[in-house]
Structures are given as C-alpha cells and as structure tokens.
C-alpha cells in the first residue's frame, strides 16, 4: 500500500536529483531547470502532508495555498532569471558557468 512515506521519498529523491544537477552541469540554463525541480520536490512534500492531515473530513488547505504561492513565485523567478541569462549571454556570448568569473561586465 502507498503511504505518506512513499510520497516523501519520491520528494526527497527528486530534490537530490535537482541538487546533483546543479553541482554536475555547467550550462546555466540546465542549472536553472534543476532549481525548478528542487522547488517542485518541496511542493510534493507539502501536498503529501496536506492530504494526510485530514481535519473534519477535508485535507489541510493551508499547505496547498502555500504550494500555490510557491508555484507563482517560481514562475516570476523563472521570468527574471531567464532575462538575466539573456543579458549575460549578450555580454559574454556563453552560458557556461565556468566562463562567468567576474561580476563586472
């Protein structure tokens, strides 16, 4: 049978995958995707806890509201982050993190 621990393990494994991606890959766009993966892993844990904390026959909607806010913040973050990447590519002609060693353009 599927328990809360199953969901939490999938969440933890997804977070670990995202973390490994951030460390291993050097393409800044892939690193950014892995950050999104880690955010989603946290969302899965939150929704899991929400479903298993049943009060008066309903799941805990406070946790799901937090997930809603997380998704919105992630969407705004992606937009700004990709704009920064485009600006970076314009000045350096590269998306490899190894070539980005100075803050000044």
């Amino acid at each position, binding site marked *: *049978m599927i*328990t*809360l*621990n*199953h969901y*939490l*393990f*999938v969440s*933890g*494994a*997804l977070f*670990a*995958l995202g*973390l*490994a*991606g951030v*460390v*291993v890959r*050097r*393409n800044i*766009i*892939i690193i950014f*995707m*892995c950050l*999104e*993966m880690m955010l*989603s892993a946290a*969302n*899965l844990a939150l*929704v899991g806890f*929400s*479903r*298993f904390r*049943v009060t*008066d*026959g*309903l799941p805990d*909607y*406070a946790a*799901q*509201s937090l*997930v*809603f*806010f997380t*998704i*919105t*913040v*992630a*969407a*705004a973050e*992606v*937009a*700004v982050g*990709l*704009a920064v*990447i*485009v*600006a970076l590519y314009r000045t350096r002609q590269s*998306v*490899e993190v190894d070539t980005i060693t100075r803050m000044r353009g």
Partner: protein
Amino acid sequence: MPSFLFYLFAAITLGFGLNVILARNPVTSALSLAVSFVGLAALFISLDAYFIGIIQILVYTGAVMVLFLFIIMLLDIQKEEAKRANTAAVIGGVVLAVVLTLQVAAVLGVFKEGAVTTEKRALSMEIASKREDVAQVKTIQKDLAAGTLPDAKLMGMTLFEQYGFHLQAIGLLLLVGTVGVVVLSKRESPNKPVV
C-alpha cells in the same frame, strides 16, 4: 488510487528528472523536465489536490517550459555541448545525491507517523459538509453533500478568506517581475548612459 499507478508516475517523474541531468542537448533536457512535471502533476492529483495538479501542468509545462525552450532556441546554445564534464563535479554531485537520498530513506524509516495509507486518512464529504466554515458558502456545501470534493472552490475559499493579503502581495510580485524582465532585456542604447 491503485499502487501500480503511484509507482508508474513516480518512475516517470524521477526517470525523466534524471534525463534532465544526463541529456547533452538542452532541448532534450527541457522536454524531459516537462514530462517529469506532468508525472508530478499526476502524483498531486493522486493526493486529491486536483487544483494544484492542474496548476502545475498549466504553469510549469505550459508557461515555464515554453519560456525555457524559447530562450534555448533564441540563444542557439547547441554548439557548446561538446565539452567533457568536470570529473570532480560529477563525483561530488553523485555522492551528494546518493547521501541525501540515503539520509531521507533513513529518516523515513523511523518516521512511524508517515506509515499511514490514504484509506486510513480517508476524506469524508459527509463530515465536511457539516463544518462551520463550509456552511457559509452554499455552493461548497451543496457539492460536499452530493459526495464530491469541490477542490478549486475550497482552495479559493482558503486563499480569499485566510490569505487575502498574501494573494495581493504575490500579485504585486508578479507585476514587479514583469517590469524587471522588461528593464533587464531592454537593449542598452549606445548614446544614452546606463541607469
């Protein structure tokens, strides 16, 4: 939900998540991440979070991944993928991921409260329809009395009754984000000094 469906969607989420890291082509990575998020949305729906599941598909696979693909194709970064990966970083990343997963597994092994099934924590529309907060909204009470879970309506009730300020703050954040993107991606004109 039958348990094989959980394993199927968990495998899709984690398998395509792994492919994001392994793929050499950034477009493959982006599409793998989209499939991974669809699997994740299925897991959300299996947890009776229909609204969050649909939002996950609409926002992530619909909007965010299209934005990623757009930027990948705009920058034309296909040519830079020939370089070999850094061995130290690969070993470090794999060790980090394995250790973190083992740690999560070890913690969950002693987390006895997590060993409950959804059947044991079943949702009850009958009990829920008698709740005080639900009684104030007739349409939710009607749905619950009919034995269905009005997930989006309940989310709306929670968001607008308890988190109204937060909702406005998040709206402001999106506005600031939009303005920031426009300012960042504006091409600097050669005659004017950069502000």
